[in-house]
């Protein structure tokens, strides 16, 4: 009987320790703000933008001033991002988006269409998993080619941008 009680208490202790470890991750302070997650666990800010929407015939173009982001990653960098969310991870997953912008005449542009009053453009595939207690860790499924990118959620106006440089640049 006593052995059982001890085993139960030890099991509880391990569960509690595991939970404490999971919670010890340094999470973003702000909701829906994306950060680069360094291998040390430190969070680094991305370039924060609210793109302008320009209508060209049947298309909508999101435009960001500046042809290149000031936040740069090398082509071989392991790209991990973190974002704090308020909803369940499963719900949050569906809102995560990564867009590739084209640098053009001093701006970055992304073409899309308005579907049911919401901007729609093809997002690059992302893996989203739990990070800490209230955040998500995001990684692009495929290695990103050199270029300009912004992370966002389909329900916020902000984009969190960065560039990937070719190896050797």
């Amino acid at each position, binding site marked *: 009987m*006593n*052995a059982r*009680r*001890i085993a139960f*208490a*030890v099991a*509880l*202790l391990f569960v*509690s*320790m595991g939970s*404490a470890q999971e*919670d010890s991750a340094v999470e973003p*302070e*702000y*909701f*829906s*703000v994306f950060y680069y997650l360094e291998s040390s666990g430190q969070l680094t800010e991305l370039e*924060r933008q*609210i*793109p*302008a*929407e*320009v*209508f060209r015939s049947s298309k909508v173009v999101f435009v960001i001033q500046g042809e290149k982001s000031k936040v740069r990653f090398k082509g071989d960098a392991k790209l991990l991002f973190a974002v704090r*969310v*308020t*909803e*369940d991870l499963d*719900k949050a997953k569906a809102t995560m988006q990564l867009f590739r912008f084209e640098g053009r005449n001093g701006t970055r542009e992304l073409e899309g269409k308005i579907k*049911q*009053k*919401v901007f729609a453009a093809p997002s690059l595939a992302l893996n989203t998993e739990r990070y800490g207690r209230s955040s998500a860790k995001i990684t692009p499924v495929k290695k990103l080619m050199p270029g300009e990118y912004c992370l966002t*959620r389909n*329900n*916020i*106006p*902000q984009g969190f941008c960065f560039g990937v440089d070719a190896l050797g640049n």
Partner: protein
Amino acid sequence: MMKFASSITSLILILISVSAAWGEDQVKLSESELLSTIYYLKSSAQLVRLESQLVLLKRKYKALGFKGGTTVFLAKGEKSPVRIPAETQPQFVIRTKDTTDPAADIHLYRLTELNGSRVTPLNQFNGIGRVTSVALPSAIMDFNSTSYGTSSVKLVPTQPLVAGEYCFVIRLPNEWPDKNPGFCFGIDAAGD
């Protein structure tokens, strides 16, 4: 032996309780009782309720609509009765449901005085009603949102707010109906 086992069990249970309590926020912050109502958080931690009104989504036509027009948010009155002194980082507080994401559901706009109202342009449309441009980046003010107290969220603009009229507008998911709950205030220039 039985006493020893019992002591170990008790010790472990105490350790678990202490570790669970460790992360709990011990600081009690002033929170509002009302859900979805936005307050200005003074430096003294006192909450000041913002001017509450329904912000209207209106279309203003040029040449009876033949030349299109502008969609605006319109708040009644030229100036908000709630005045906030100019400061680098004014802070606001709202009690929300757990799953509300202020970044998605609340927008902060700067409005200008026009014919006894406050307005901010949202988009331009042509003679057949199709949107031709969106004024979002100039109209919308970016802010950060973070947990505050046990059930509230603190909203902090990312840039200092210059003197003028502002409204937080709360929207339904992915939709802007004709009337939207708004919480307005004015920033007075330093020295006013």
